[in-house]
């Protein structure tokens, strides 16, 4: 057994942070928080604190990299050195390069990139504090910032993880559960259609557990979607409507 692992992580149906098995952590969202960005958002999700800026669409230099029929989407996910227990070395590591890729692919699904040929849209995600589940939180923050930038999308992307801890399927793992639990299943969806645009898993699940976790994660993402819409509504004074 790993040194540092708690003996039990679920006691009388309650998790170490007091939540029930299927509870989300508290979530706060704001958009338009950075003056210089074309769109921006700040998200607190449990102990996660995430700042996201969107620049663009704007011309891409050098021009030969630009795509003639659509915008290029670039995405950089990175963690502040002090966002984790032991100081993280600055600069990109392999994990953040992979995460940047899967987050970008999830966002590409909903953005009408063909409306902005020859341009680039940059999404910068900075994890200021990390507490498990930063990739889901990052996608949620990024789609808010894209909406704030006025970039047309078929829908917001929403996301939530489920997983297995002490033999139980639970929603929205926090750091300790992430580190010492049996499985983590982050899922991002396009809420209107129910399509899954990000799916990763590591750990160990039987078929039934997997089915249960997948359903649970999707239901979590749907709750987060309501918060996203509310945030945009409060900011822009109208009910959030998707494009077309």
């Amino acid at each position, binding site marked *: 057994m*790993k*040194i*540092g692992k708690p003996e039990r992580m679920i006691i009388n149906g309650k998790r170490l942070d007091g939540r029930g098995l299927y509870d989300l952590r508290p979530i706060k969202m704001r958009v338009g928080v950075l003056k210089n960005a*074309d769109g921006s958002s700040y998200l607190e999700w449990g102990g996660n604190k995430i700042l996201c800026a969107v620049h663009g*669409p704007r011309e891409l230099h050098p021009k030969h990299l630009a795509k*003639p*029929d659509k915008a290029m989407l670039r995405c950089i996910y990175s963690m502040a050195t002090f966002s984790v227990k032991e100081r993280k070395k600055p600069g990109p590591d*392999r*994990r953040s*390069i*992979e995460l*940047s*890729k*899967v987050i970008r*692919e*999830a966002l*590409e*699904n909903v953005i009408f990139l063909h*409306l*902005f*040929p*020859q*341009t680039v849209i940059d999404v910068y995600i900075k994890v200021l504090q990390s507490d498990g589940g930063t990739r889901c939180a990052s996608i949620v923050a990024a789609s808010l910032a894209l*909406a*704030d*930038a*006025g*970039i*047309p999308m078929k829908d917001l992307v929403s996301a939530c993880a489920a997983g297995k801890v002490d033999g139980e399927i639970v929603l929205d793992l926090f750091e300790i559960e992430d580190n010492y639990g049996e499985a983590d*299943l982050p899922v991002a969806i*396009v809420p209107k*259609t*129910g*399509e*899954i*645009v*990000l*799916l*990763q*898993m*590591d*750990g*160990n*699940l*039987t*078929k039934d557990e*997997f*089915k249960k976790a*997948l*359903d649970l994660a*999707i239901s979590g993402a749907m709750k987060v979607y309501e918060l996203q819409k509310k945030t*945009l509504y409060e900011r*822009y004074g*109208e*009910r*959030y*409507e998707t*494009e077309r």
Partner: protein
Amino acid sequence: MSYRRKLCMRDMVNVMKPKDEILANLKRNFILDILKKGKRVDGRKFYEYRSIEVQQGVIKKAEGSALVKIGETEVLAGVKLSIGSPYPDTPNEGALIINTELIPLASVAFEPGPPDENSIELSRVVDRALREGEVLDLEGLCITEGEKVWLVYVDIYTLNYDGNLIDACCLAAVSALMDARFPKLEDDKIIYEEKTSKRLPIKNYPLEVTYAKIGEHIVLDPCYEEEEIMDARITFGIKQDDTICAIQKGGRGSFKPDEILNLYEDAVEKAKFLRSFLNI
């Protein structure tokens, strides 16, 4: 569109599509047309692997090695051992370090230089299945608790790229680990020239099974032409007890929950099929 919109004028921009885009669309339509008829570009069934070959022991300098071919896709995995210190929080465990490299021999699409995001994703997806699937009993790699442990490096090179590198690399890695023997140890110095008969402490045989989604169609083991135009890809890491140990969805396309659950079931069967090439 009912809220702030900075960029509406851009919609007017009208740009000619160059030939590359047209060509890509033609290719996609060609392959889609075939799929609609229930066939694949190379004649396979939708949920069928290409021919598979596994050859162990091809590199004697390595502690273990395996060459894997899936159709024309060809990868080589080699295992090297060295001695290091354990992590402070796991003092009696060795380490497994897996690295996959997309080398330009395999395709003009792979550039020389430091690994790009595709290379890193491949490397991490293979690593995830083996690590989470507990291919090795890491405690079996301990030499002296808290002081000396075996470090097991698995390096995988792509020799020819014709689609579905993930499954090939994972199969090659497991096969090379099975092929490996500990070298002789003398006064804590490794005598690489002399291999013992002792095998690595293999605990599980996790393998990866990958599907591509093209339009509404889903196919197993995509070849290069299919990968080139696919919308999305999904990989399942499956252990020999049929549980799942890793998933990776890739590409900008999407899957429906039902599709994923169905593919999981198929993947369990396909992992068994792959495992037959390892004689287990």
